[in-house]
């Protein structure tokens, strides 16, 4: 997008499709979906400082499985987490997207 929010109706179609297909593919209700999302954010936040705005869950259907892709931009490793001696210091505005994939 060059200039901010788009008013193209196809973008609305895309986001609405994304919403219904996630429900259709996973069989989760809307409430379960947002619950799952909140819990995932909490778990990741235990170990990393993340950019919650950029947090995104996607469902990709492959030949015989659906793959869950969780994209969570990590701003910095949380100090003292996972028993590590020191957190790697990354510039706070430098966002490294890291993706976690798992089959469901």
């Amino acid at each position, binding site marked *: 997008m060059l200039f901010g929010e*788009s008013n193209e*109706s*196809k973008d609305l179609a*895309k986001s609405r499709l994304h919403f*219904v*297909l996630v429900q*259709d*593919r996973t069989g989760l209700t809307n409430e379960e979906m947002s619950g799952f999302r909140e819990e995932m954010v909490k778990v990741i936040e235990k170990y990393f400082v993340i950019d919650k705005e950029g947090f995104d869950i996607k469902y990709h*259907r492959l*030949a015989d499985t659906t793959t869950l892709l969780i994209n969570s931009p990590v701003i910095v490793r949380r100090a003292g987490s996972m028993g590590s001696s020191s957190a790697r210091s990354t510039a706070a505005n430098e966002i490294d997207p890291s993706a976690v994939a798992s089959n469901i």
Partner: protein
Amino acid sequence: MNSKNIGTGGKKDVGEAIVVTSGKGGVGKTTTTASLGAALALRGQRVLVIDADIGLRNLDVILGLENRIVFNIVDVAKKICKPSQAIIKSKKSNNLYLLPASQTDDKDVIDEAEVRFVLEQFKREFHYILIDSPAGIEQGFRNACAGADSAIVVTTPEVSAIRDADRVVGLLSSKGIEARLIINRIDFEMVRRGDMLSVKDVQDILGIEILGVIERDEQIIVAANCGEPVTYNPKSKAGQAFTRIAGRVCGEQIAIPSFDGGSIWNRITKRLGVGQ
């Protein structure tokens, strides 16, 4: 018909059965079956199109063969007639045949095993068997998929059609049937304006191989009025698209035309609000 082998030009001994399905009704399954069948026949392939929409048959009228029906798929399945008695040669091609649906039965009058039996009767006679599935995901759909080697899922670039297509792709996948996508009735002008999902958008959402893209074309209606597949109209963009799709089905590498937003200059002027 002799039952030894399929005609000249075929490399395989046994034809390929392809189900044409969509979930949602009215997206162009029957038109696709007829037009792709005609396009494959024009390439010299022997093609049988089967109407699996029992009770709501329409492939016969799209092909202009409605007044020649004697027997139908149910008669073949129940062994009321010989398989060769039920198929009807198209008016335009010696390579294209129709096995009509019964108009007076319910969808569950035959089961999946009987559909497999029907396919077996014809697989050695034809290079391609295209099965026109009814809308929905119930028994009629399951029958149409029985014995299919692969699937063509037809959708339009609309939310409802894409959602149903996704559901059908999932069901096909659980049956081990690989699906390829045809995007029907795309309007590249609307795509350019941002008011219609593009080919790439649809592919990103559904995540399956695209077999073809068909532009919205008035000639499809004209062809249906006349009972002649649009493939025979060389000026029709839809007809040309089906010809390209037939080439891809036969394994040729033919690029998919797409229009994903136009030139960079168009995009910039559009964002600035000074575009057309």
